[in-house]
């Protein structure tokens, strides 16, 4: 019975963290068939979080950020080649080099790419960069090594803030431009947003909120400055575009899958939906490109750009690819992520944007050590710690058990009169940077509702 699941041909499109961990899990689960990994970057899988931290600080060469293998995967690797299409009827992945890869089961882990600067000519100026890939980070680290007089960071989400932090630690002047009211506000809401704003300014960042960069200026093909929506103008030699990520789903256009700018929709078992909302049984999705329903968050479709989600969802997807129905598992992990910036360790569990209220549960803003708890309609849905990581497990348990919000009084290190405030999570539309957690309670793209004849 299980023999058919453990053999055959599996293709994984996307050879980064999720694709790698899925491949390893497939072998752990006894898959003996033919395994192929396709990756558009020429590098073997590597770890992205250090790119905006150790690498930009100059502590670690970009080339060092490979990922350790958990085991051998005995796979055929096709690196440096993009998947260009999916033929679900023929069960083939089309590659940009014209090759066709037949599969019995497919896993989509194509992730995201950096959202480019919207004006292509300006984006081509020498000195305009993004940070998503190892090559990006290597280029930016080189630019920072050269000691530019000022760096402009466009967008104050986690990546933008970490880049600004690295610049300040290197002693470089840096301006951060954010359309929203504060850094990190899209992911963490108003309380920690204003904390982050004070933090950046205390570290010498020229932080400008409520503004957009209207144009990047160049001379002889080199970036020289930028104009902001408030009419000001700054001279910069390097601009880092940190406007969030774009999901790599274009290659699935015409595939009949429920794929669009918000990701590829799937069930809690990582099986992709087709455009009619019917679950497929041979196409699975995991990692940043997936959107999936989560029971802790009203079954809203979550799309998480989180390292931990890539690992955990890949493991669930791989398990479900090689096991029959009754043995399949749901992906129920509580979302979690971290960021380190300006010498602080910021960790999150749950979904802070799924909230209407917050309270400081432990510590204080003044100390720079605190835990903020988030609630939605009277239950706790998230918590974020700043240099207080050892307590976070407690809040994870509260989230998992839908414990009441605000947390009951009577804890050490809790403010004597804790205030409950509006969580103040802005509409993502007002932010420069895309939210790292997208809550999307509807199907991805209107055009997918247009019925097309089946092939």
């Amino acid at each position, binding site marked *: 019975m299980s023999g058919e699941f453990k053999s055959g041909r599996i293709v994984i499109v996307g050879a980064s963290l999720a694709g790698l961990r899925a491949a390893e899990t497939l072998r752990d689960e006894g898959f003996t068939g033919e395994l192929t990994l396709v990756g558009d970057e020429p590098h073997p899988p590597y*770890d992205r979080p250090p790119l905006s931290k150790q690498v930009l600080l100059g502590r670690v060469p970009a080339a060092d950020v*490979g990922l*350790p293998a958990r085991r051998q995967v005995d796979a055929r690797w096709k690196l440096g080649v993009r998947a260009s299409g999916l033929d679900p009827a023929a069960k083939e992945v089309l590659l940009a080099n014209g090759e066709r890869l037949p599969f019995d089961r497919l896993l989509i882990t194509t992730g995201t790419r950096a959202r480019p600067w919207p004006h292509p000519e300006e984006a081509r100026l020498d000195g305009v960069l993004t940070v998503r890939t190892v090559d990006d980070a290597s280029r930016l680290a080189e630019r920072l090594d050269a000691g530019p007089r000022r760096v402009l960071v466009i967008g104050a989400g986690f990546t933008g803030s970490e880049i600004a932090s690295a610049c300040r630690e290197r002693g470089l002047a840096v301006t951060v431009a954010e359309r929203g009211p504060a850094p990190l506000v899209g992911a963490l809401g108003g309380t920690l947003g204003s904390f982050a704003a004070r933090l950046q300014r205390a570290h010498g960042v020229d932080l400008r909120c409520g503004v957009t960069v209207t144009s990047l200026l160049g001379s002889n093909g080199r970036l020289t400055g930028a104009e902001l929506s408030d009419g000001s103008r700054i001279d910069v030699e390097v601009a880092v575009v940190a406007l969030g990520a774009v999901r790599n789903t274009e290659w699935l256009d015409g595939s009949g899958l429920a794929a669009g700018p918000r990701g590829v929709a799937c069930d809690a078992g990582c099986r992709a939906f087709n455009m009619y909302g019917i679950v497929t049984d041979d196409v699975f999705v995991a990692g940043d490109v997936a959107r999936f329903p989560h029971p802790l968050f009203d079954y809203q479709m979550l799309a998480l750009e989180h390292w931990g989600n890539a690992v955990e969802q890949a493991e669930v997807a791989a398990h479900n690819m090689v096991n029959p129905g009754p043995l399949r598992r749901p992906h129920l992990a509580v979302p979690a992520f971290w960021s380190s910036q300006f010498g602080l360790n910021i960790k999150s569990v749950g979904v802070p944007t799924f909230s209407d209220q917050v309270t400081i549960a432990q510590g204080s803003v003044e100390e720079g050590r605190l835990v903020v708890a988030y609630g939605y309609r009277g239950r706790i849905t998230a918590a974020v710690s700043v240099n207080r990581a050892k307590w976070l497990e407690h809040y994870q348990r509260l989230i998992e058990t839908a414990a009441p919000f605000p947390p009951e009084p009577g804890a050490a290190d809790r403010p004597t009169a804790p205030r409950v405030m509006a969580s103040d999570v802005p509409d993502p539309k007002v932010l420069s940077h895309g939210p790292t957690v997208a809550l999307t309670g509807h199907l991805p793209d209107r055009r997918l509702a247009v019925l097309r004849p089946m092939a």
Partner: protein
Amino acid sequence: MQIVVDLNRCEGYAQCVFLAPKVFELHGEEALLYAPAPPAEQAERVRRAAAACPVQAILVGEQAGADAGTGAGADVR
């Protein structure tokens, strides 16, 4: 040698920093930075650090896909 730390698991006990201070480092009071590809002479310390991690967050291994080759459409098994 290649390492990765699951920083979701990490709670900042810093045992790795004590045991392999040239590979792991606290950045501020709690944030962990590390060298993902430590030199061979640190291997023993790294293994001691991985064993000691109270939340078992350190994965030590050889680089994944090292056998994959690189370059456009490289097809290596």
